[in-house]
């Protein structure tokens, strides 16, 4: 059984990150933007776990746990903001969010 090269894991993480980045830049629906942010966070977690698997440590998995916690809190707050936005503007188009107060 041959081992998996570390670079393949990191390249996969880079490609997933880039796909999430393309999604954030192109989509106009705010739910899609949030989903693509999650893709990017997941790709970062994959990079951490792959790197720690190379050394045989637990540190990367702990960092992944922290990233997961961060993503959970961020999704909760982000979805609350989406709900507020929908109540105020009755749309999920991000182009209505061009005005800042004052």
């Amino acid at each position, binding site marked *: 059984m041959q081992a998996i090269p570390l670079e393949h894991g990191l390249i996969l993480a880079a490609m997933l990150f880039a796909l999430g980045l393309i999604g954030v830049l192109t989509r106009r629906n705010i739910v899609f933007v949030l989903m693509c942010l999650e*893709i990017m966070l997941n790709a970062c977690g994959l990079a951490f776990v792959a790197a720690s698997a190379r050394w045989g440590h637990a540190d990367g998995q*702990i960092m992944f746990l922290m990233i997961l916690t961060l993503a959970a809190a961020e999704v909760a707050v982000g979805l609350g903001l989406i709900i507020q936005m929908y109540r105020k503007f009755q749309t999920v188009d991000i182009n209505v969010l061009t005005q800042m107060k004052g």
Partner: protein
Amino acid sequence: MTVLFYLAASVALISTLAVIIQTNVVHALLYLILSLLAVAVIFYTLGAPFAAMLEAIVYAGAIMVLFLFVIMMLNLGQRSREQEKSWLEKRIWIAPVLMAAALVAQLINVASQQQANVSGVEVGVREVGLALFGPYVLAVEIASVLLLAGLVGAYHLAKK
């Protein structure tokens, strides 16, 4: 194990591509769940079963279900599907794809300089637990404070 890694990697890439191309929100979410489960399989092939289970249970199981709840609550409907199709023209993909391609090329260039293999050692729950209660105990406490902040913030934001 290597075959499983490459298979799961291709599934993850294809389903992530499907997420960013979809016009239907619920379909995109389901493709995202598939991508997250494929990454969980990748974690298992890398010898990190704890991270694999966390990814499957917390990320795909809790966070994406939260997304689904909010989407069902917003109740966007048929009008939004046609709206999505009209928003996704061909020409808006050009600039982001070029910029992301430049980024990925640079990342692949840097990542290819590694000459190491993944060690076949399986870092199981026991090692992660010992590290969490050992050097990283402060991180656990701070993570719980973060979750508390997220909870209070989400409650306030979703209130009428």
